[in-house]
């Protein structure tokens, strides 16, 4: 799976969790909580969705690694 695939999947799941986000405006370095205003329940929903899609079980201590699009792509590419 290429990092572009992972990027697309991450964005897709992020928009599922937060359907009121505008895909066009999500920047690579936007923090999902500080900038995109996800709460901890949304973050867990995102982690659960990524687990389901990619089979990657992100432990709680690694949540910061998926907090932005660019960090997530790098983290998930390594784990995939």
């Amino acid at each position, binding site marked *: 799976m290429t990092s572009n695939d992972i990027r697309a999947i991450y964005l897709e799941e992020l*928009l599922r969790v937060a*359907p*009121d986000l*505008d895909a066009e405006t999500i920047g690579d370095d936007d923090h999902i909580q500080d900038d*995109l*205003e996800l*709460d901890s329940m949304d973050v*867990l*929903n995102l982690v659960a969705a990524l687990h*389901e899609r990619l089979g990657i079980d992100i432990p709680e201590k690694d949540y910061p690694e998926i907090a932005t699009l660019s960090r997530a792509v790098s983290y998930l590419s390594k784990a995939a």
Partner: protein
Amino acid sequence: MGVFVMPSLGADMEAGKLVEWLVKPGDTVHRGDVVAVVETQKGAIEIEIFQDGVVHDLLADLGRELPVGAPLATVLADGEAPPETADTPEPEAPAPATEPEPEPAHAEAAAAAPASPPPSAATDGALRVSPAARQLAAEKGVELSELKGSGPGGAILLSDVENAAPGAPANTGAPAKKASPMEEMRKAIAAAMTRSKRTIPHFYLTETIDVDHAIDFLETRNADVPPGERVLLGAILVRAATVAAAKVKELNGHYLDDKGFAPADMVNPGVAIALRGGGLVAPALMDAGAMSLAETMAGMRDLVTRARAGRLRGSEMTQGTITVSSLGETGAEAMAGVIFPPQVALVGIGAPKLRPWVVDGAVVPRRVLSVTVSADHRVSDGRQVARFIAEFARCVQTPEEL
């Protein structure tokens, strides 16, 4: 024959816009079924029917703003024969305060009904649409039923509407600017909070609780399970508030202007959910008293997901018995909140903070959080609120028993 009317989805709601029918004439309905979607100041809400029977006729057109109490549909009881004239509900409809609205709606519906049921009712049930998408579609004149949603379960997202909208993206040529959903929601919050502060004599009790053990408990528990089974501190807090509310009944119920305090026999904690860009909803986790910690967590996840997708239900908007508002895991230290009428208490919880704490005579670093209960002095006194807080703290500190 029963008449299904526009329900009140909050003390300050006067009207709602019917945006979707999820049933059509001939459908069998049961008490509690979601039958329609109504757009209110608090976003799109699924409304439930409170009788069993068969839908006879849909009286209201989609897209119309209708006052609370306006007839929306007629429902025949099981086995009841349809009336001879197709449209008799008018006389038995509970007269709404403002009569003119339902009349034309009814007439048009009766004229149109036999030939063409509303388009979305003819499709296979629920159109799932995010609140932002619904708003943009209205602004741009995009027909939602013609879109293919790319969201969960085919939900129509903002981007789907943007792609379908003729012309350039957003905010060009929205003529005669109508209040945005956020402005509408702020108006609803303003009305409810002003009413609360004007009528409810609030008082507040605060306690700081050591949550080190609860956080450790969750870390250990969550390390061994997949994400879908993890539990957040927020669920422990809601569960603890639920147990405490079941014990201290003076904080769980509604205060009605004519009857005074009516304690509730179930605990339906309203869970405050902040919405992107401002605004707040506090849908109720129905009968949380009967839930385990894991079920409380699952219920909260479901509420948050549906709040984001614009799929909360009418009962969840009106049947909360106490509100829990938590500032999350990285927020301010304490909050003294405003009670959501007609409820009589709100549990305001600050973010956990690392603080010097005295344990067994020694100062040690501990993660602590503050809980501030706002209570209605017409109903309770400090003694009851102190009992609530003691029970809440006990539960938070013994999460394995929740």
